[in-house]
């Protein structure tokens, strides 16, 4: 049996959108898939050693369930993002959902390969020393070398 492969392109850097790539990648790896995640644009934030700046905002996010309905004018107030993030993290913890750090570690442990888009690293002038060490830097063509052979390829 040949090993199945999955590739994910992670483009978002908010707390809610950080979960799908790591959940899918760790699950696929557990099922025996060979997995790579290509982090580009805001997805690069998910490679930082410190993930505490990964937040969720109720602004422009009308589908986000809120404990009380909140007018957009209120969502704009300073501190709302931190509050929403704190509440979301509490909710995740209460439901036994792993933290981002834990899921990311599980991915690395399972040999999921992380590729950072070199172009966006340069574009946003990211400091590579702020990223975790298990990251390879490359471009779209390099990613396609793997993605072209996959059974599942997702854009998140």
């Amino acid at each position, binding site marked *: 049996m040949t090993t199945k492969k999955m590739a994910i392109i992670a483009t978002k850097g908010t707390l809610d959108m950080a979960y799908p790539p790591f959940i899918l990648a760790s*699950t696929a*790896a*557990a*099922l*025996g898939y060979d997995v790579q995640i290509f982090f580009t644009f805001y997805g690069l934030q998910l490679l930082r050693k410190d993930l505490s700046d990964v937040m969720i905002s109720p602004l422009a996010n009308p589908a986000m369930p809120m404990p009380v309905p909140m007018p957009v004018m209120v969502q704009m107030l300073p501190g709302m993002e931190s509050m929403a993030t704190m509440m979301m993290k509490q909710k995740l913890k209460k*439901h036994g959902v792993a933290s981002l750090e834990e899921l990311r570690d599980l991915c690395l442990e399972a040999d999921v390969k992380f590729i950072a888009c070199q172009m966006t690293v340069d574009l946003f002038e990211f400091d590579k020393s702020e990223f975790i060490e298990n990251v390879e830097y490359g471009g779209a063509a390099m990613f396609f070398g793997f993605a072209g052979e996959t059974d599942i390829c997702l854009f998140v």
Partner: protein
Amino acid sequence: MNFDKELNARGLSCPLPIVKTKKALADMTTGQVLKVISTDVGSVKDMQAFADQTGNTLVSTAEENGEFIFFMKKK
């Protein structure tokens, strides 16, 4: 049922029961049985899917007092 190792996955949500099952099986030998206890209702279908896709055998699934108990035989 006899088992060689037990995994307590109580309180954990997707994908942790599956990921931890995979990890627990990694240091077991062929034919050994892993008992997994989960409280995540989603794990019922996920454990079967895990077995189907990895070739390990899900010997049984049971529900007791709101907990799900799986016996997984390593390939």
